[in-house]
């Protein structure tokens, strides 16, 4: 069941996953502050960028939580927990060092794909549970976008599995140590996977479900600690996708001189910075336009990408 990068003891696994998700989400939040200020023309120092997310988190903790009229209480609480748990599940199959993963299972890309599909359930429930119109609109928008971009993820990951001859992320990483990195071998993959990353964490140009014009969408009715939990979970998901992109396209933790986890952190930070930069520079796309482009342009591109990957692998 376990491939090259191995499996960790459950206690080690819990500590590692919590630490990576905690630090990763914090790094994304700090990047948002820093890059946002730079794009706005008022650059902040590193210390100020690092401090701002903490201040924001403390503020949210101090605020009371809002309760709507007849909400679905349990589902409202469970939605951020489910979303964060799915980020943790997706992270657990990724190699974090050349010889370490929480569980480098044979069915890695299927587990990863299941986590991103079930994220649709978490976001839908987060919009459904408050019993309020704007969150509900956000919930339906996420499903419309999710059904459009999730197929891209499947094709991109299957294409990456072809040269590795395995669905394990450890082997996908190992196949790039021997040959070219997938970012060069499969040039369409990273841009398509970036669309999925932005879509699943409803971030920046693809923030359909929690956008400003819906007064926060599925998060319109949350404040205080639940808002902190939701904001953290979204950034944890984005961090997981940055790590996954680094593993699948940039050979993840493998590299000369530096230790593996450091290489992975640097590559994931670069990808996260690019995604955050997109958030601050590209306007939000209209949902109907995105669905049209996803089905008529991006999906055929993903077919093409898979076909090219197959031919290149066989050649």
């Amino acid at each position, binding site marked *: *069941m376990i491939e090259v990068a191995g499996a960790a003891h459950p206690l080690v696994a819990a500590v590692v996953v919590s630490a990576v998700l905690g630090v990763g989400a914090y790094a994304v939040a700090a990047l948002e502050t820093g890059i946002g200020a730079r794009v706005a023309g008022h650059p902040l120092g590193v210390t100020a960028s690092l401090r701002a997310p903490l201040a924001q988190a403390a503020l949210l903790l101090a605020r009371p939580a809002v309760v709507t009229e007849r909400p*679905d209480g349990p*589902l409202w609480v469970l939605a951020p927990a489910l979303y964060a748990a799915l980020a943790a599940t997706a992270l657990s199959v990724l190699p974090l060092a050349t010889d370490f993963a929480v569980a480098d*299972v*044979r*069915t890695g890309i*299927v*587990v990863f*794909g*299941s986590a991103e*599909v*079930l994220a*649709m*359930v978490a976001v*839908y*429930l987060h919009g*459904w549970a408050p*019993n309020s119109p704007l969150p509900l609109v956000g919930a*339906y928008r996420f*499903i419309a976008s*999710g*059904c459009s971009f*999730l197929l891209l993820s499947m094709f991109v990951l299957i294409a990456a599995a072809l040269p590795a001859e395995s*669905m394990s992320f450890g082997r996908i990483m190992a196949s790039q140590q021997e040959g070219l990195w997938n970012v060069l071998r499969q040039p369409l993959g990273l841009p398509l996977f970036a669309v999925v990353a932005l879509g699943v964490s409803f971030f920046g140009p693809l923030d359909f479900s929690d956008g400003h014009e819906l007064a926060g969408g599925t998060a319109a009715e949350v404040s205080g600690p639940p808002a902190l939990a939701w904001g953290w979970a979204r950034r944890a998901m984005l961090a997981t996708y940055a790590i996954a992109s680094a593993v699948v396209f940039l050979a993840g933790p493998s590299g000369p001189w530096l230790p593996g986890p450091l290489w992975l952190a640097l590559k994931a930070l670069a990808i996260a910075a690019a995604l955050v930069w997109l958030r601050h520079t590209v306007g939000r796309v209209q949902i*109907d336009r995105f669905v049209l482009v996803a*089905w008529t342009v991006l999906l055929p591109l993903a077919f093409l990408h898979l076909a090219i990957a197959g031919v290149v692998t066989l050649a």
Partner: protein
Amino acid sequence: MTGVVVDVAFWIFAVASAWFGWRVFRTDSMVRATFSLLASFAGVGAIMVLLLVEYVGVALFFMMGVEMVVMAIYMVAFMMNPAGINPMQMLHQRRVATAVGVAVAGALAAVAVAADLPEAPLVAPADTIRALGHELMGGSMLLMQTVGVTLATTMVAAVVLSSARGRFGPADDGSRPPPLDPDEQVEAEPAQAAARGDGHGHGGHG
């Protein structure tokens, strides 16, 4: 994993699956019913992983995930009690259903007790996924390719049919928004014209 851990995990997932399956019929909310069913299936998927049917078990998660999300949309859209606002009975034909349920459960239990099941401990087969791939792309290739192309065609056709803009013009051409007041007569004028601003003004809207 050791045998005890697998046994404990099996019972946890088995009881959870049965409990969520029961919850499907005890709730008023279509969303809760749908996602209870999803949780029940997820438990079955986890049990399949425990039984070392790794790929099929994990694939069950995403297949049921998409399926139940789509089902939730249709349940909310078409059932008479989407959000648990009006009382609604989830059970139909109770006597027949009870009889069938008891009979099937009894038959399955009888099979489990009476059948001479092998006791050989399960060993993880080295290459089930490879074997599955060879089966799908070898012996069953014609069948799988036919099914695949049929499904893909159905998906594309469904998207084309439900698309608002088709080759024969906008799908909502000539449709009218429902009046806010249920007693009000629907206007004869197509809403499209009014929305475009080239329809003449209507008086009398309060």
